[in-house]
């Protein structure tokens, strides 16, 4: 299992479209992915869960991946977040 803190940097935060992109990536991997923010932990393959986090700009989320392809998955998630979800 690997865990890493990632900061949301896009100005609109983790709203519907970014959440959809995130879920699209995590759904492609076999490993379990969980995201934690402010004591709330959600399954990163569930779109409603991810949106429920309401992760605004500058907030920090904790991504936890566990499974055979956890490294690639985490790398992809970080890339998406750091590229502002390809929105801006």
């Amino acid at each position, binding site marked *: 299992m690997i865990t890493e803190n990632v900061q949301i940097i896009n100005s*609109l*935060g*983790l*709203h*519907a*479209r970014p959440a*959809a992109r995130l*879920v*699209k990536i995590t759904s492609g991997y076999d490993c379990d992915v969980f995201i934690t923010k402010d004591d709330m932990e959600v399954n990163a393959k569930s*779109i409603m869960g991810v*949106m429920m986090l*309401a*992760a*605004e*700009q*500058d*907030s920090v989320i904790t991504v936890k991946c566990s499974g055979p392809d956890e490294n690639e998955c985490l790398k992809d998630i970080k890339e998406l977040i750091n590229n502002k979800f390809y929105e801006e």
Partner: protein
Amino acid sequence: MNRTLPVSQFIKHIQHVINLKTVSDNNYSNGRSIANSILNKPGLALTGYFKDFNSSSLQLLASTEISFINDQYEAKNTRDMKKICDFDIPAFIIQGRKKIDQRFIDDCALKKIPVFRTTKPFQKVYGEITSYLEDFFAPSTQVHGTLVDVYGTGLLIMGRSSIGKSEIALDLVERGHRLVADDVVTIQKKDENVLVGKSGGEYTPFMEIRGLGILNLKEIFGTRAIRVQKRVELVIQLEDWKKEIEYERLGLEDDSIKILDVELPRVKLPIFPGKNITVIAETIALNHHLKVYGYNAAAEFNKLLMKKMKRKEKLNKYLDKDYE
């Protein structure tokens, strides 16, 4: 393929609507047909000017034309005017009570062009004939699918053969909705953005369910189970579930399909055993209602979410250096 409308068929349909009487038709209408949906007023063609003349259209003679024709016969100046009868005109319709010179009718008979008369008002005649012709000549196509009226929304279920379209329709009918057409749906473009579907062979109540054979839904569920035609508003595309295909998760992006150049919203639905498509189909229809009325759940949800994030951001900034 260009359809043509036999004059006799047209007369049969329209005569009781506008009280059409035969003036001269010695079997002339047999074998004559109308080539397009235009109801033409010959106008300048009567003067011998035939550029852009719609000779293969139905010709309507109203009071101006009748007066002109009568005057020409009176003045014995019919050489140009009579040329119109040399064209392959499907039929003349005289509108109004004004008497037309018998010689004109004789000249038409000579060329075997049938003449009819109606005394209904011009607008009524023009409207009824045009709407019948447009209806007949409207572009149409056939699609493989099942059309059901779900809560008043015309839902076209498409997908490969034996994926379960008829079963879903049966389920919907059982729940109180109405079948329009199964398997072959004839779709006609009635207006720029309006498609109307009906059963291909006008066999609305019949459907085949694998394992059961042919059923008549009208006999089983009563007359409420069917309807003759319905506007097609929404397409559900049934697909085999594939792990690698991405399905719509949000509903912010709208998919669509073009039928006869009309864009219809389309929902792609992956199916697998045990999934209750019927309830989903009903929900799709109701959600479409909401969208028509201007409500989009995904957009509303996103608005709420963004508001919440904005609020948190402000609060965090306020509390940032607040050490008391």
